[in-house]
């Protein structure tokens, strides 16, 4: 019971949906840099949240990461350099859009491959139906025949 309550409390504390994320004091004065910062933030995961980008999260750690991203941008890093910097520190877990290397190719190629397979099967099926002879008129079995007679009598 107590364990449960603690667990529940821990869960609630993690729910990160509260106040709006980006705070006014974080916003960069250069609108172009700020736009880039926002775009980058949308692709970076808030590490203590569940499936939220640092742009959406109000967690302290997300704020730290947002400030870090902006810091790097002000220092003159390119977008890729900022991402590399963050990934070096926190691992690929921080990327909401997984990299396209190694085993992740399975993830990225699964959809297109499946589409090819599906489209292939679909085309084969349609061609078969196209070539199939018109079915002969169906004959009724005994039960259906009886039922038909009943209906006709009504």
């Amino acid at each position, binding site marked *: 019971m107590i364990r449960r309550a603690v667990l529940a409390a821990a869960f609630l504390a993690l729910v990160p949906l509260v106040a709006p994320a980006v*705070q006014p004091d974080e916003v960069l004065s250069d609108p172009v840099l700020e736009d880039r910062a926002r775009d980058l933030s949308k692709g970076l995961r808030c590490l203590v949240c569940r*499936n939220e980008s640092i742009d959406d999260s109000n967690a302290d750690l997300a704020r730290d990461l947002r400030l870090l991203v902006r810091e790097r941008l002000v220092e003159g890093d390119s977008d890729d350099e900022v991402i590399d910097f963050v990934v070096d520190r926190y691992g690929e877990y921080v990327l*909401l859009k997984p990299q396209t290397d190694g085993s992740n190719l399975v993830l990225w190629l699964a959809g297109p491959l499946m589409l090819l397979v599906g489209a292939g099967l679909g085309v084969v099926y349609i061609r078969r139906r196209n070539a199939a002879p018109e079915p002969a008129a169906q004959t009724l079995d005994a039960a259906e025949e009886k039922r038909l007679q009943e209906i006709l009598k009504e």
Partner: protein
Amino acid sequence: MIAELGHFALILAAMVAVVQAIVPMIGAHKGWDGWMAAAVPAATTQFFLTAFSFSALTYSFVVSDFSLRLVVENSHSLKPMLYKVSGVWGNHEGSMLLWVLILTLFGACAAWFGGNLPPSLKARVLAVQSSVAVAFFAFILLTSNPFLRMGIPPMDGQDLNPLLQDPGLAFHPPFLYLGYVGLSLTFSFAVAALIEGRVDAAWGGWVRPWTLAAWVFLTIGIALGSWWAYYELGWGGYWFWDPVENASFMPWLLAAALLHSAIVVEKRESLKSWTILLAILAFGFSLIGTFIVRSGVITSVHAFANDPERGVFILMILAVFTGGALTLFAARASAMQAKGVFGLVSRESALVANNVLLAVSCFVVFIGTIWPLVAELAFGRKLSVGAPFFDAAFTPFMVVLAIILPIGAILPWKRAKLNRAVKQVVPAAILAFLIAALAWTLQTEKTILAPVGLALGIWVVAGSALDLWSRCGRGDMASRLRRLTRLPRADYGKAVAHFGLGVTMIGISAMNAWQIEDIRVAQVGERFEVGAYEIELASVDQVQGPNYYSTMARMNAYRGDRLVAALTPEKRVYPVAKMPTTEADIDNGFLRDIYLVIGDAQDDGGWAVRTYIKPLANWIWAGAILMGVGGLLSLSDRRYRIAAGAAKAGGGGARPVAAE
């Protein structure tokens, strides 16, 4: 005492379910009428026992019986009545009880309204449905009993998560469950047909209304959840590709595929084995969804319950039912011979394309959802798959779907001429192009996304209107209009649902591309410009609500000198749950929403304020409502009502003839 009766009724219901899973199945196999007929009273009894059990739990919540553990953990005496009631399913045990209640309700409906089914098929359908119920009764009784008492009842409850205290969310789970569980009946029909070894046009006709109903409920449930997220989470996001959202989206995609392929079975006696497979997979994904939500294996924003024992149990249910059904499918699918012949260009081919796209897009969502788990278990990589992946990997499918939809919908059955169909939809293409060009020239920031999305949406919307118009035949305006009023409701359903899809697409593209966001510190009394509007922070007050404290801002939105909206965004603290929430205030408009959020007090005496202007935001949900209405229109079509009438007249194997 009431709770014990509820528990007892649940056990009785489980036993009835066991009988109903076995007796009619044997009866159908041996051809014993009495044993087959036992399914109907059993289904009725099962439903009423479960309904009694559910009522008993609801009663305990309503009177705040704090000797029940579940009530203590999920309710509070100060909570408004609506949320005491919704608290029943706002937790794991109660939501599973709601799940079986709906499961038995669908079983009972099949028993009551399935009079025109052949007796053996009906008996098998009800038996399969009941075996699913047995599994879930066992799950509740063995791992998630909602009727456990407390040794020492506390004076008051521990509240419900205040985020969940919201009308949108109160009704979100019941609708989703109606959808999930509705697919169980489709599954039962599929398995029964496999056992029977026979799928014909009549089967397609029987399955379709249930699929349609499940799909409508899923649509409403998903739309409610997304609408809730939009106004409750405080930044106007409406879809996050969260595992729990995906869990409801995957069955929705497959149900959409299924209700299209069932048309082909019904009207053209083709795609039979594929439809059976889809029916099995659709319910399989409902179970996967339940597993994801209930086990918390992929923790996400929504996962409030987490317990491995339960997860394993649901996984076993999933393995037994989908595994068993797929094995049966492998053994029997070859018996399902297609009859209809159709050309490369035909409505059938278009529906095959629709099915391929919907099924593969569902597969993409599935892979994306489970990939973090697979990558960690199999490759030792700890990674995330979030919205950017799904946006990139899923959206193309919807784009292609939107492109072929208006043409496919207008193609005739069997053999069609592509150039004739294309000619019919040319006006839609021209309209879409003109509006996209207009949007391109009018927009200040040149993004290609919005005009393209807009064009697709308009193309679908105008295409569905043309589709309806083309159904009115040829001749002068008056006679076509006269025919328009006499079209079968299924035609209207189709057009309205497709129209709705287009409207949602327009809303999503406009909101994603043209949203204006403003974050600033504002002093009380300050006026600032956002887009075409001026926003004023009039005052900020501390207010006490029934079970929370609130910081409430009064803000006004002006356009020129005209007051457009007076809004009161809040920040609340729920003391019992010790939890703050943001209550944005939104001025809903046809063309835009003004979305205001009040943040923290700043050191200089100002307040953090966020303003969003969200163009066409409401179109997203308006489109979802239209899709639902389309489904209902189609469901109310004459042939289904006639089918119900035939059932009353006791017509054994009679089949309603489609008004085609």
